[in-house]
């Protein structure tokens, strides 16, 4: 059974990190990152062609991380594969021992390093979650029996700060109905909005892992605002980083405060260190 699920079930405050597979076959950088994060994290999210840019597959990288002794969260986007390939990869994931799957839509190819690619989007994330749940029940999306079912712990993304909230809320309810049991949120800057989301989700039986982004410099603020879809760094935080003598130290202090706040609101925290992997320990224990 998914350790992530077990931890949630026992009421543990869950800590997850994130690793991006390399663009190439050399896994040493990814492993170095895993080794830095592993002592502080219960599980690591392995991104799938992050930012619509070419990386080694999340499937292979998730297995490599499992072999290194830490539980992966296999991420699957709807951008690059049709329904046959997605289902086939879900079966592969389960056979490789991957028990958590995070289904997301995926950035548009126009935002990535292969802007001429055809965005597939044969399915959307809600439909993919429904299919994963069906596989847990022993059948494919056409209703045919599988020789051997899966038993995934299914997660999806959530965006507590993106208005209009009523539309977001309807989406969240849809996803839970589709079989989603935990949500990983976009980076949180406004704890009231996180609280609002948790209050809505908890009664429906799903868990919320709140995202924390380490914004180590004004340049990163600019990058987030311009290149990360569905995310804006609020002015007061951008100013705090740019006014600091040591922006990186300030970013670590800010992230540490955010993690502390999140502990009393959500079920877990997901740290996205954006290159400051070495500071994750401090952020989580501070």
């Amino acid at each position, binding site marked *: 059974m998914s350790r992530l699920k077990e931890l949630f079930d026992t009421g543990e405050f869950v800590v997850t990190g994130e690793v991006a597979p390399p663009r190439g076959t050399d896994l040493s950088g990814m492993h170095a990152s895993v080794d830095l994060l592993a002592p502080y994290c219960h599980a690591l999210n392995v991104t799938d062609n992050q930012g619509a840019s070419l990386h080694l597959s999340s499937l292979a990288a998730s297995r490599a991380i499992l072999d290194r002794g830490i539980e992966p969260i296999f991420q699957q986007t709807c951008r690059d594969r049709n329904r046959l390939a997605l289902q086939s990869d879900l079966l592969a994931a389960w056979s490789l021992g991957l028990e958590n799957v995070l289904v997301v839509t995926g950035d548009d190819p126009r935002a990535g390093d292969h802007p001429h690619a055809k965005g597939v989007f044969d399915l*959307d994330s809600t*439909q993919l979650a429904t299919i994963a749940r069906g596989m847990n029940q022993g059948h494919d*999306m056409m209703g045919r029996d599988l020789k051997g079912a899966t038993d995934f712990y299914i997660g999806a993304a959530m965006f507590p700060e993106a208005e209009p909230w009523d*539309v977001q809320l309807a989406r969240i309810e849809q996803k839970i*109905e589709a079989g989603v049991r935990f949500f990983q949120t976009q980076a949180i800057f406004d704890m009231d909005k996180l609280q609002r989301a948790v209050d809505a989700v908890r009664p429906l039986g799903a868990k919320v892992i709140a995202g924390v982004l380490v914004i180590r410099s004004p340049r990163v603020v600019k990058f987030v605002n311009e290149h990360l879809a569905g995310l804006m760094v609020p002015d007061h935080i951008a100013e705090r980083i740019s006014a600091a003598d040591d922006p990186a130290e300030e970013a670590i202090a800010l992230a540490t405060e955010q993690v502390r706040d999140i502990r009393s609101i959500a079920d877990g925290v997901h740290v996205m260190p954006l290159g400051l992997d070495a500071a994750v320990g401090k952020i989580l224990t501070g």
Partner: protein
Amino acid sequence: MIITKPRDWARIIQNLESIGARSVFLMGCGQCATVAHTGGEKELVETAGRLTAAGYEVTGWTVGEVTCHLNGTKLDARKHRDEIDGADAVLVLACGAGVQTTADAIAKPVFPGLESLFLGTVVRNGVFEERCQTCGDCVLDMTAGICPVTTCPKGLLNGPCGGMWNGMCEVLTDRECTHVRIQRRLTEQGRGLGGTLAPKDFSTALKPGGVNIRDRVTHRRAGDREGAR
């Protein structure tokens, strides 16, 4: 209607040069290409002038009534037989369907003079938007008359995606997110927030489409085998 735009002029000249053509007959279209200002009388006269200036002889031109109509185009071609006979090539200012009926109707090299873009809505004169991809499995009943297949850049049936911000689209940042618009209209009409739409049947959009109401054969596209009986 079918939205077209003028084809790159250098490519048109290249096409004519490829067969050593010196004289050209022009075919336009009285329907979509006229409304799109790409293949009506005015554009044909302009194109004739341009070809003449480039040293070509224009033997004649006509605005086909409905150029994508095969028999109509055959009739138009017959009316202009002498001008067509005197030309080395025919340049068609119509959509790809019109180019093909012309190529079927006239036994001469036929070249496209326009690029065919999409099935468009005329928002106002000269402003066209793509709102339907003729998918053969319409979901507008569920989406308050706003097509997610076409107007959401990712074509998601259930949304918004994670890139939506303040109601605006992640990909086309100056446009409202289709799914926010759908949900707003559904709510305004008291139709709730809509359910989850099931994965789309893409077999209905397989090419080439075909309908034959004369023989009571309603097969639409290659994937739609049952209806073919």
